[in-house]
């Protein structure tokens, strides 16, 4: 059922409180672009919501500060926007993606928010955690730097999608480097006799691209894989522990890497 214009306008309050479902939010944002009065109203409501938010302040856990600051040191920053639609800038908005749908983002710097950015932040955070907890510091540091290089590659692209084993799989790919970084969260936990294996897939061929480590608190540490070629997709299958040289089961997810 389509909302009439006046009804749409009345959603300004719920919008400012993030209380719309995805479809309504999209529709309201389209309306917002053309509605100066709504923009002004939403801005005032957003400032009001901020007052509510500030009132909820609480001391963050010890250790968070160090983790955030450490993660920032290995996180590339976005360049300033040079041509953002005024209505969006006016509200300081960036796009929130829909959880659970496959989306392709262009160049990494264009990623704004949502699941992809969250996944990327998780990759970076996990990289930092890996650095600080692994014994073979040297090898880990080299690996982490290689991962950071893919994330920061000028042609890096991110693809994310739900898997049939639950959760979300995310690939950051750089064709120039011929490498991908794979990470996931919320995948079904496998018995120790099985493992998730990564593949570079194309019609009639599957090249092994490494094994996915066991998840820690629901997320798997980033896996770096080399040998990406134009036209490859990245797939994940469930295989016997130790992995196989060719997939033996149907992939739980196949992510197309745009050329």
């Amino acid at each position, binding site marked *: 059922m389509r909302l009439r214009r006046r*009804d749409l306008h009345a*959603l300004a*309050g*719920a919008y400012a*409180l*993030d*209380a*719309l*479902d995805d479809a309504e939010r999209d529709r309201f944002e389209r309306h917002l672009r053309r509605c100066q009065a709504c923009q002004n109203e939403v801005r*005032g*409501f*957003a*400032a*009001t*919501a*901020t*007052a*509510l*938010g*500030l*009132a*909820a*302040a*609480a*001391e*963050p*856990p010890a250790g*968070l*500060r160090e*983790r*955030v*600051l450490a*993660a*920032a*040191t290995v*996180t*590339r*920053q*976005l360049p*300033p*926007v040079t041509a*953002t639609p005024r209505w969006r*800038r*006016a*509200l*300081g908005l*960036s796009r*929130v993606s829909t*959880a*659970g749908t496959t989306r392709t983002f262009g160049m990494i710097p264009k990623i*704004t*928010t949502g699941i992809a*950015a*969250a996944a990327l*932040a*998780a990759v*970076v*955070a996990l990289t930092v955690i890996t650095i600080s907890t692994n014994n073979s510091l040297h090898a880990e540091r080299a690996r982490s730097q290689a991962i950071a290089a893919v994330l920061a590659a000028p042609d890096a692209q991110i693809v994310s999608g739900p898997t049939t084993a*639950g959760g979300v799989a995310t690939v950051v790919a750089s064709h120039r480097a011929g490498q991908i970084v794979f990470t996931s969260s*919320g995948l079904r936990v496998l018995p120790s006799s099985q493992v998730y294996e990564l593949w570079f897939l194309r019609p009639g061929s599957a090249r092994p691209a490494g094994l996915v480590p066991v998840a820690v608190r629901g997320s798997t540490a980033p896996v770096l894989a080399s040998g990406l070629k134009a036209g490859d997709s990245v797939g994940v299958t469930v295989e016997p522990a130790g992995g196989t040289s060719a997939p033996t089961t149907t992939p739980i997810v196949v992510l197309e890497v745009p050329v």
Partner: protein
Amino acid sequence: MCAARPEQEPAERADPDLDKLLTHVAKGDQAAFEAVYDRLASSAYGLIRKVLRNPSQAEEVTQEVLLEVWRTASRFDPARGSAASWVLTIAHRRAIDRVRAEEAATAREQRAADVPVPVDEVAESVEATMDAERLRRCLAGLTELQRESITLAYYGGYTYAQVAALLETALGTIKTRIRDGLTRLRDCLGVS
């Protein structure tokens, strides 16, 4: 309760120092980012925890949010709103993203078992600062339905349709009560 005339200073007042810090962060200034962390991390964490309830999830989301602040600092424009507003908008959205993702993933019954944030708790947990005191007074100036709708949506993380179901009130009524309530709250707080 609240006079139509705003009081002398807006509760969500602009902080030029904080705004300036963020512009330094956009240029990769780590020290400025540390200062921003020290000023806003507790606000972000507190809000996210209020919505998510689960402290370890809240910690995770707070980390994502603060990293996003670092990554996207160049998108902050002080002419369009305060730094605190920008950061808390991101924080609230990420918390809500998490709520919605989990709702999609888990059985709705589980969440239904959660008791919504009692309205009074909101007012009582507010620290005894002047701004908080004013917010408490302004909240008290709303009708009960306006107040409940706003706090359930914002702190409870419910969509307005879910709020309507929780309060057994028509969808259109909740929609307008949220808007009317926010208008009154905005005028009472004197935010721009």
